[in-house]
């Protein structure tokens, strides 16, 4: 119910001519073993310019790990664990209950305090007090969701993280940054020429990407804090496929300056270019393992595009994919155990994952044109681009394929998603 309202609200924003076309999220599949949670409205929440609990509840539901229960009709709203009728929630099989209150402070800012309650144990799992201004309501809601997520699952939540993607609207290309729920989109770069392959620096402060504004592909690094950018690779020929090393100091890139598309390492300021290896075929789409020791990449050295890996220190490349004639765009999960990539099956390009230990492969989608997979920093979702009704949309799925979502922007093509890292607290 709440979600439907939110979608309508997002729509109204668009109709009202808001500066940005917002991403609208539609949940198309649910996970198993979800934690039943009831997020009660915070007492006094109506003093806030927007609802906190609606946003937090949607974040939790979108994660696929929670099932949001109906939480209306409670009067008066409890603000302290001692006021909660636990047996009532127990009878509804609620595992977790969230209660809280909000108030306007004398200086015009706001305060929200909440408790997360374990219903079976009738105990508080903790709570936090946040002070924030009118522009920080959503950010605060995401932090509340992440607190709850971590307490209940033992893993970090991603509600406070951001995503980058490219929107093509007519002849205009925009590199946009939004919250993980698609809201609050900001334009980092607008161009009349294509922008592809955005990648977040490990500290989340910079984006590397490829821009065609000088009639050929050139690699840039763009600071999101200052809006300044610099050229990292603009050599003779093509420069593309930037991938950050986990240390944030160097990138792997593909350069054709010595002929062919080959892998190089380069410092983030564009200095110290060195070739990783020499092959006669195409090597592209490098991606670092989380420990920075290996690079996964796509190569057609064996006759068809397949995924390989090579130690960063050099040495022999070893082939990872053997199943099918087209396996591309390798992206390693944050724990280094799973590889997401795109495979071609009977002419359809589909998102797949492989368990790197067992080399077991699983196709996750039934769509036609999947591209550019990107793991959430907690590894629980994979964001990717696909096509729906002839238009580019973003979609997300859990690595087991159970939780599925779609993110669309009305009247525009969305592509090239990249999920940003955890932000330092």
């Amino acid at each position, binding site marked *: 119910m709440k979600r439907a309202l939110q979608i309508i609200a997002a729509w109204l924003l668009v109709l009202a001519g808001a500066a940005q076309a917002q991403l609208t999220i539609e949940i198309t599949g649910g996970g198993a073993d979800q934690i039943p949670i009831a997020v009660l409205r915070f007492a006094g929440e109506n003093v806030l310019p927007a609802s906190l609990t609606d946003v937090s509840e949607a974040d939790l539901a979108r994660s696929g790990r929670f099932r949001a229960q109906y939480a209306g009709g409670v009067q008066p709203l409890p603000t302290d664990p001692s006021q909660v009728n636990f047996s009532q929630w127990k009878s509804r099989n609620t595992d977790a209950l969230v209660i809280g209150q909000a108030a306007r402070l004398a200086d015009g800012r706001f305060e929200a305090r909440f408790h997360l309650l374990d219903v079976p144990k009738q105990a508080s799992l903790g709570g936090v007090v946040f002070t924030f201004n009118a522009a920080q309501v959503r950010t605060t809601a995401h932090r509340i969701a992440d607190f709850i997520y971590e307490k209940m699952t033992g893993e970090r939540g991603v509600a406070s993280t951001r995503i980058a993607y490219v929107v093509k609207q007519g*002849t205009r290309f925009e590199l946009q940054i939004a919250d993980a729920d698609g809201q609050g989109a900001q334009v980092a770069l607008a161009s*009349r*020429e*294509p922008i*592809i*392959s955005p990648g977040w620096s490990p500290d989340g402060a910079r984006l590397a990407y490829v821009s*065609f504004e000088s*009639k*050929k*592909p050139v690699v840039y690094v763009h600071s999101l804090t200052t809006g300044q950018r610099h050229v990292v690779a603009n050599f*003779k*020929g*093509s420069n*593309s*496929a930037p991938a950050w090393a986990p240390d944030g100091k160097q990138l792997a890139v*593909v350069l*054709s300056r010595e*002929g*062919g*598309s080959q892998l190089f390492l380069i410092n983030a300021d564009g200095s110290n270019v060195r070739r990783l290896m020499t092959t006669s075929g*195409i090597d*592209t*789409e490098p991606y670092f393992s989380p420990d920075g020791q290996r690079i996964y990449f*796509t190569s057609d050295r064996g006759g068809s*595009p397949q995924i390989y890996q090579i130690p960063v220190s050099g040495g022999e490349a070893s082939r990872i994919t053997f199943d099918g004639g*087209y396996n*591309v*765009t390798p992206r390693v999960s944050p724990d280094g155990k799973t590889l997401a990539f*795109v495979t*071609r099956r009977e002419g359809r*390009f589909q998102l797949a994952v492989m368990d790197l230990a067992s080399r077991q492969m699983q196709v996750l989608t039934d769509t036609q*044109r999947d*591209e*550019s997979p990107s793991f959430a920093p907690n590894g629980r979702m994979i964001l990717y681009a696909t096509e729906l009704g*002839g238009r580019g949309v973003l979609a997300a799925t859990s690595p087991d394929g159970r939780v599925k979502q779609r993110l669309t922007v009305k009247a525009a093509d969305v592509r*090239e998603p990249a999920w940003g890292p955890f932000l330092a607290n």
Partner: protein
Amino acid sequence: MNKKLIAALALALLYGCGTEPAKEEPKAGVEERTPGAVQPPAAQPPAATRPVAPTRVEANPLKDPNNILSKRSIFYDFDSDVIKEEFRPMLQAHGKYLSQNKSAKMLIQGNCDERGSREYNLALGQRRAEGVKRMLMLMGATESQVEPVSLGEEKPRCEDKTDSCYSQNRRSDMLYGGEY
């Protein structure tokens, strides 16, 4: 067969483009202009001398629609960078032109259809452009004159999701200095 026809058709269109420079208006630099379309206005003869006279003596051979040098596109089969026989005379002419005009520079842009990974397609486009470069160098062009680059699948000439569209997008375009 079909593809050849389409390629020929596309070439004919290109050709047609070149003969009617008056119709061209630069459109925001978004579409990669067909080589015939990137003519600077200076190349257009005054209106009075325009009648269908292929006898213009001083015409820039690169812009003269009757000169093979005004043809700038090579089309490919799916997943192939093989330069088909029909494009060889054109490449020969460009190679010869470059070898006789050492100050001339050329950007070769390789392109792909939209199917598959953007970055892998970028690499495939690069391979196409480098194939053109190699052939031009066999004909006498020098390394410093030609720069092969790739636009991957990012600058389609035709945006429909049909085979005939895809065949127009699998191509290399040759642009001389001043045209890009």
